[in-house]
């Protein structure tokens, strides 16, 4: 009995229905935070921050490139950990989150690669170079696409979830390589602007909007993840009575 009381929160956390209802209430606020941060950061970075001494105005691409890259990498950890939790504790919601994280991560990696290529043209004189950072980032994109493809290969949900979780866990090796690639190899890519230890190598006037944009991208990630997961919950739980009730109520309200 005692065990039951202690573990109810854990079960509730793993309940798709609980997640669906909670996110319904969180989403408007979270979207507001996301919009405020992104609009502020983008306007600040594009129109108000001073230009870079060497790169001129092209450096403003940093306000999209760096946040997208950071969240794409963090999102990979999230996807792999969600997969691991699914494998270990067999929590259905965990697999749903894992599946939802894949397309968002792929799209953010795509943004990082494309804005990086565009930035490369005026800075390095080339759109694409096969250097360590860029190549490992391209591998990240393929890993995300691989997880998405593998997830869709099997018609059996359980097998597909397990396979995708294992692939995302194996692919986690790539993430530290991406982080360290600029230090380990001689590359064209500049080294990290923001470090956990030590001051950023950037003037506060340029750095502040970047922080706002990073927070904006994180909140964007949460909003998009919630929306994808809610759609996934409906897909997998479409035969349950609570989803049927939800649909009927929705029709009545209209």
């Amino acid at each position, binding site marked *: 009995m005692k065990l039951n009381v202690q573990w109810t929160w854990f079960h509730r956390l793993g309940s798709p229905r609980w997640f669906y209802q909670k996110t319904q209430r969180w989403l408007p606020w979270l979207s507001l935070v996301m919009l405020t941060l992104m609009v502020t950061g983008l306007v600040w970075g594009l129109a108000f921050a*001073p230009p870079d001494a060497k790169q001129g*105005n092209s450096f403003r691409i940093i306000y*999209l490139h760096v946040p997208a890259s950071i969240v794409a990498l963090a999102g990979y950890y999230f996807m792999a950990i969600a997969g691991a939790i699914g494998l270990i504790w067999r929590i259905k919601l965990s697999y749903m989150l894992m599946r939802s994280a894949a397309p968002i991560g792929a799209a953010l990696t795509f943004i990082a690669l494309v804005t990086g290529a565009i930035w490369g043209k*005026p800075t390095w004189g080339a759109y694409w170079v096969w250097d360590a950072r860029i190549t490992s980032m391209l591998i990240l994109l393929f890993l995300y696409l691989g997880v998405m493809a593998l997830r869709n290969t099997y018609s059996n949900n359980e097998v597909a979830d397990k396979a995708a979780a294992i692939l995302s866990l194996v692919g986690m090796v790539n993430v530290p390589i991406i982080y360290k690639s600029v230090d380990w190899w001689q590359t064209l890519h500049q080294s990290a602007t923001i470090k956990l230890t030590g001051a950023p190598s950037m003037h506060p006037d340029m750095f502040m909007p970047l922080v706002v944009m990073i927070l904006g991208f994180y909140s964007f990630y949460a909003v998009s993840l919630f929306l994808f997961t*809610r759609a996934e919950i409906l897909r997998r739980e479409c035969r349950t009575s609570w989803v*049927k009730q939800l649909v009927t109520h929705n029709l009545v309200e209209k």
Partner: protein
Amino acid sequence: MYFESFQQLVFMGGHGVYVWSSVYISLVVLGGLILKPLCQKKQMFKNIQVQIDLQKANDKALNRGQDNASHS
């Protein structure tokens, strides 16, 4: 604002093409990440509604069949 005019903000000293194309592509992709799941949700609601209606029609037919059987 750092720029003196709107034109300068667009031109960005020759770098405007690079900066604004990055902004455009990023915003389109981010917008897609919001719209895609919303469309999926809408589609799922439609599908489930069809399922419920079918089930209702089915139940009705079954009941009628039973009624007929009991009358005869």
